[in-house]
């Protein structure tokens, strides 16, 4: 049976989470088709056709899919998905939004947020905020799965030569519509894709002080994140939150600054390769997971760190 993977993109470029989801599909094994649904997204389909392991790109290019509304995307994917053995999407907020609708329309369970493929029907996934890892086996004929992208190494973005097939089926519901969006604009790399992440917590004291982190981030080519405490306190917007209910990151280097290390936060970053903690409280739980800990005042450390890098 073939595998249908749903591409994550912004109508202009393919999100790297797609390449990681393709890696999970490759481990399951089988012919892999990639659906690019969006508006004015031909360039994404062309990019996707070069991805390693994709045999066919399905392109659904219509205004109905421009903002990835779950009602439209869910129905489209369920209609297409009937003939596949597996349907996979990255566990981004888009994937989490429409995939359960696909599963329900196909009358099958969904397996959320897998971190390992044991076999074509058996997967590992974190439960209880990553405090336990469950191995689950699906008896459904179609397996609907979301993939935690950070747990898989991306397939190559180049080298493939898939055909692109344009679809003409259009699903456009009349019960939901896009009104607007406020997207954070940043010159820095995306949090979930960055190889270095530097995050600030309540210890930053206010939003202004985050520029101290930004200066270090610019030296390292890093993305800037935050703990839930910093977001809840209004220092920075929600899209910067790293944690169980925010973004899950696993960079080469994670620097936690003024973050105590609540379970909620650890769930979002403990798979990072190297963790550095900077905190003036030497009892802070973050030090229990850090490879390198520096007990010091962050307002002294950050300018010095910027200068020494």
């Amino acid at each position, binding site marked *: 049976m073939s595998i249908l993977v749903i591409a994550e993109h912004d109508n202009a470029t393919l999100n790297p989470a797609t390449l990681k989801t393709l890696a999970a599909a490759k481990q399951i094994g089988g012919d892999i088709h990639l659906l690019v649904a969006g508006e004015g997204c031909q360039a994404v389909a062309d990019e996707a056709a070069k991805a390693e392991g994709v045999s066919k790109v399905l392109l659904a290019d219509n205004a109905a899919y421009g*903002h990835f509304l*779950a009602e439209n995307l869910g129905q489209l994917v369920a209609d297409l998905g009937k003939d596949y053995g597996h349907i996979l999407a990255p566990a981004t*907020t*888009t994937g*989490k939004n429409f*995939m*359960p*609708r696909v599963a*329900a329309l196909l*009358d*099958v*369970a*969904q*397996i*959320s947020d897998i971190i390992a493929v044991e076999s074509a029907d058996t997967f590992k996934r974190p*439960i*209880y*905020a*990553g*405090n*336990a*890892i*469950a*191995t*689950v*086996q*699906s008896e*459904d004929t179609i397996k609907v799965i979301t993939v935690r992208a950070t747990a898989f190494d991306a397939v190559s973005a180049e080298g493939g030569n898939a055909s692109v097939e344009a679809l003409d089926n259009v699903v456009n*519901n009349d*019960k*939901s519509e*896009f009104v*607007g*969006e*406020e997207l*954070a604009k940043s010159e820095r790399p995306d949090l*979930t894709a960055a190889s270095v992440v530097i995050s600030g917590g309540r210890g930053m004291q206010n939003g202004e002080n985050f520029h101290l982190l930004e200066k270090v981030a610019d030296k390292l080519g890093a993305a800037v994140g935050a703990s*839930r405490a910093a*977001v*809840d306190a209004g220092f920075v917007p*929600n*899209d910067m939150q790293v944690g169980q*209910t925010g973004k899950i990151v696993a960079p*080469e*280097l994670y620097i936690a600054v003024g973050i105590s290390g609540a379970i909620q936060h650890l769930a979002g970053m*403990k798979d990072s*390769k*190297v963790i*550095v903690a900077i905190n003036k409280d*030497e009892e802070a739980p973050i*030090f229990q997971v*850090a*490879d*390198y*800990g*520096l007990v010091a005042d962050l307002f002294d*450390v950050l300018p010095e*760190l910027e200068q*020494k*890098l």
Partner: protein
Amino acid sequence: MKVLVAVKRVIDYNVKVRVKADNSDVDLANVKMALNPFCEIAVEEAVRLKEKGIADEVVVVSIGPKAVQEQLRTALALGADRAIQVETDELPDSLAVAKLLKGVVEKEQPQLVILGKQAIDSDNNQTGQMLGALTGMPQGTFASKVDVADGSVNVTREVDGGLQTVKLQLPAIVTTDLRLNEPRYASLPNIMKAKKKPLDVTTPDELGVSVARTVKLLKVEAPAERSAGVKVADVAELVEKLKNEAKVI
């Protein structure tokens, strides 16, 4: 307008989770249980809609054994008007829960259904969306703001890149994110009053839904532990270690 809120009984979020010695599941024996935090936010949002005069009745529903009545009473103490328990000793998966909720929706005909975006035990993040697909209702998931006006609701959603707002025709489904509101504490008089509020019990059989699972739990393990590393004396040592030992910069 009637608002239906679905709630789940889960391990209290302050409790440290332990895996059973035989790796069959996590150990929930003698562990403090509570209302799932996202469900608490859902109840609060519904109660606020009632206080604003937008909703006239808040009905709260939970699925599970008799013990879930404890969480239903909590929701009643927070301001819900009446409760429904769908009694089962099984642990239905999200799809079965969505089917049971669809049965309740058909009976109650709410204009708005509010659920938590995920339960902090299974971390699935599925039920609201599945209920949307089964009932044909539009959905506003991961909500940080809900504005009901004249037959529709505007939902501001927390998405990866920032915030997105969608307009949904009622009846609609909303799932809550953390910043939607800050739930109140139940006052003692309200806890006493909640004991007298109506709580009806129904069953999956009465709703015509099978709760058999199609996904088997084979094994539950503790995650690989990260051990604490070394403390460095100053910034110079930190930079030196990152360059020469960890080789990450």
